[in-house]
């Protein structure tokens, strides 16, 4: 695609460079189809044979171009070599581009650009070739413009299509007019050339030449505008991928215009070959830009790996959303819970959004991704990201589920431990109470009987001493049993048990709670919490009174121990080992303990336990 569109010299320059116009699509259709079908289908289908197919395609193109350029190798080896290299690089780029879904058209356009670049120089041969080279010399530019405008869109817009048709028509028709109004010598060629002169008129030919080439200049400017518009409009991944291509394209058009201007202003003899050489070298920016674009797309897919790492590390839907937005370069991307149907519908409805359900096989979807439709063009990248997200999300959900189940198991076993401990305490208390205590009481009664029956005052006194000793033992036994588990809690409930505790405290305790019994584990837990809290009030609070309130709602129970003391008790002082035990017990019932002790406002210990 030498010099793209503006590179056409006008007037005398045109004649001086006659060899540059002579071309004709010599490429046999058969050869092309072979390269196409075999080379690319193999490339796509079998990784192992792709290098072979690529080598064959490149060899065929190289041979073809070398032959087409023919005598140019003697006239300017450097230019011939650069053209050949340019053609090969474009074919190679086209072959890579072919792998991308929906990009076979721009891939073909690129390859044709390379091949027709060489065909441009067929005027090195004599005979009819110089005339053909002039007429079809702009075809490589048309193909180049086609590739630049199309990639990576699925189709050309109407404006772009009209532009390309008009460009092709203008170039071929305009140049045909120039050829038929001129003769070979005017164009700097030899009279032995075959030349289809209809009406030789040098001044008319000159005017036509300026008009045609001036028009081509306008097409060049239009192309720059169209390309710039593409860049401005591109979003997200599109912008990343096409930026190098558009920049290289615009640069090539401008560079070609500079060469064209030099040629137009200089005389036949002075326009040097190296100007074309320099321009051809500059044109390499285009295949390089396409290669960069292809590599960019591959790199973007590689970024999906990073997405996996990020999503797996965080696991929540928000983190995955932002990871997806970064990876897919789409700040509008939404990741929604499929159950959030209204938001899904609302987001999907907004014009032409890309909707993708994350799901494993036939399972219910675990999330919905709603993204910029631009991403539909990057199916490979998008699908990879979706697959990765599905796995990451499912993994996170499974982990969360496992953690929840484990926690549930721990809770159940904690509750079981607390309940078992409570049952054990109650059993022990009852054993002491009904077994040992009854025994001791019986002996006391017998000692009393003995005391009344005996007539010996010494024996009576001894029996009395023994009985008093036993009574002391009984009192101790009762304290021990109470410490293990207060019987009053079992028999009369929390209120009575707290009442008993309150009776032994050196400050007034008001107890307010609903009538009726609570569950044994709940009563025991609340009892121990209250005992601990009341003990702390006595030790630390310097309070005048305490209020113990139990409130029961449908789904929770709350106990509050509030004193009117100094407050400001540091959590460390209240929350000693005793409270840690209590927090454990409360936790086993899925409840929580909170302590509030603002200075001067007393201390409140609150326990909330879910129930029902």
């Amino acid at each position, binding site marked *: 695609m030498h010099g793209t569109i503006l590179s056409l010299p006008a007037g005398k320059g045109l004649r001086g460079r006659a060899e540059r116009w002579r071309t004709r699509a010599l490429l046999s259709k058969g050869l092309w189809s072979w390269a196409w079908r075999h080379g690319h289908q193999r490339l796509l289908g079998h990784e192992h044979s792709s290098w072979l197919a690529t080598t064959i395609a490149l060899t065929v193109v190289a041979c073809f171009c070398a032959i087409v350029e023919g005598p140019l190798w003697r006239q300017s080896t450097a230019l011939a070599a650069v053209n050949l290299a340019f053609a090969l690089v474009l074919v190679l780029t086209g072959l890579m581009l072919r792998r991308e879904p929906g990009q076979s058209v721009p891939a073909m356009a690129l390859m044709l650009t390379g091949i027709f670049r060489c065909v441009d120089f067929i005027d090195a041969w004599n005979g009819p070739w110089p005339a053909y080279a002039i007429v079809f010399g702009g075809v490589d530019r048309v193909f180049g413009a086609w590739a630049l405008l199309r990639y990576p869109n699925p189709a050309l817009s109407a404006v772009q299509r009209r532009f390309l048709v008009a460009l092709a028509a203008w170039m071929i028709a305009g140049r045909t007019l120039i050829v038929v109004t001129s003769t070979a010598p005017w164009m700097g060629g030899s009279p032995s050339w075959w030349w289809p002169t209809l009406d030789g008129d040098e001044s008319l030919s000159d005017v036509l030449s300026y008009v045609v080439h001036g028009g081509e200049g306008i097409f060049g400017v239009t192309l720059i505008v169209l390309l710039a518009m593409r860049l401005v409009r591109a979003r997200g991944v599109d912008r990343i991928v096409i930026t190098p291509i558009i920049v290289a394209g615009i640069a090539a058009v401008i560079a070609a215009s500079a060469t064209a201007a030099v040629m137009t202003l200089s005389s036949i003899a002075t326009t040097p070959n190296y100007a074309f050489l320099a321009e051809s070298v500059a044109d390499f920016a285009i295949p390089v830009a396409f290669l960069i674009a292809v590599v960019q797309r591959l790199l973007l897919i590689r970024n999906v790996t990073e997405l996996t790492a990020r999503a797996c590390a965080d696991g929540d839907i928000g983190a995955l959303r932002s990871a997806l937005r970064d990876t897919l370069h789409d700040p509008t991307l939404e990741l929604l819970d499929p159950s959030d149907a209204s938001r899904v519908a609302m987001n999907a409805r907004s014009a032409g959004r890309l909707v993708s359900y994350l799901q494993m096989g036939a399972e219910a979807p675990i999330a919905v991704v709603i993204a910029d439709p631009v991403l539909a063009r990057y199916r490979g990248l998008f699908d990879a990201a979706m697959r990765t997200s599905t796995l990451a999300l499912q993994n996170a959900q499974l982990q969360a589920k496992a953690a929840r189940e484990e926690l549930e198991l721990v809770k159940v076993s904690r509750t079981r431990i607390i309940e078992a401990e409570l049952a054990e305490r109650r059993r022990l208390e009852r054993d002491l109470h009904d077994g040992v205590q*009854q025994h001791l*009481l019986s002996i006391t*009664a017998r000692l*009393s*009987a003995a005391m009344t029956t005996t007539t010996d005052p010494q024996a009576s006194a001894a029996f009395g001493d023994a009985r008093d000793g036993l009574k002391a033992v009984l009192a101790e036994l009762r304290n021990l049993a109470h410490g293990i588990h207060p*019987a009053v809690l079992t*028999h009369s409930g929390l*209120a009575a048990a707290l*009442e008993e505790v309150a*009776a032994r405290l050196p400050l007034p305790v008001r107890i307010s709670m609903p009538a009726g019994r609570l569950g044994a584990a709940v009563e025991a837990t609340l009892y121990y919490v209250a005992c601990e809290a009341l003990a702390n009030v006595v030790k630390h609070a310097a309070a005048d009174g305490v209020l113990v309130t139990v409130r029961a709602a449908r789904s929770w129970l709350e106990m509050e121990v509030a004193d009117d003391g100094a407050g400001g008790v540091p959590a460390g002082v209240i929350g000693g080992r005793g409270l840690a035990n209590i927090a454990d017990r409360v936790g086993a019932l899925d409840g929580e303990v909170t302590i509030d002790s603002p200075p001067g406002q007393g201390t409140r210990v609150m326990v909330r336990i879910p129930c029902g």
Partner: protein
Amino acid sequence: MRVAIAEDSGLFRSSLALLLNSLGAEVTVAVPSGTELIAAIAASPPDVVILDIRMPPSFTDEGIRTAHALRGLHPDVGILVLSTYAESKYASLLLEVVNAGVGYLLKDNVTDAGALMESLSRVAAGGTVVDPAIVTRLLERRQQPTMMGILNDRELEVLRHMAEGRSNLGIARELFLSARTVETHVSSVFTKLGLTQSDTENNRVRAVLAFLRSGGPER
């Protein structure tokens, strides 16, 4: 005095019978449950029955239920309920269902021969006895429940002795006061507690009940 015993612990039952016999009482029946006791005394009711509060089948308050049933069947038989729990709740429950000739004693004090006989005779005579340990604990409480707050110290002292089953004369002796002064205090307690019935014996029980309830938690 003829006494019947319902007590599920065989060892304590036999020891109690032994003690009662040694004190000159005649133990006519000694069975392990309330229902057996009711059946056993049907033909010849004793002067007093001694009931353990916790008996089969539920081991909670069978003694009180049996007391309730007995009072319907034999209104003249005194009832003494024994417990190992120094809870005012059970005492007040008992006094609610049986309002005269009734007593609530802790087993520890039962083994005290003098206290046992005194309680038995008071109950047999239609008096009301609440174990002094329970009464003391109620009084030891620092917080003064509203109803008890309206009694002065002397009246509270008199009420306490009333709860322990003493007559006005007994209280007078105990507190070194004249019978007339005690009577004044007693009627003052009745008035302050809103007990206006003319039946003074019934008023005594009500006053004691009010006293016991004052120890219960706020509801």
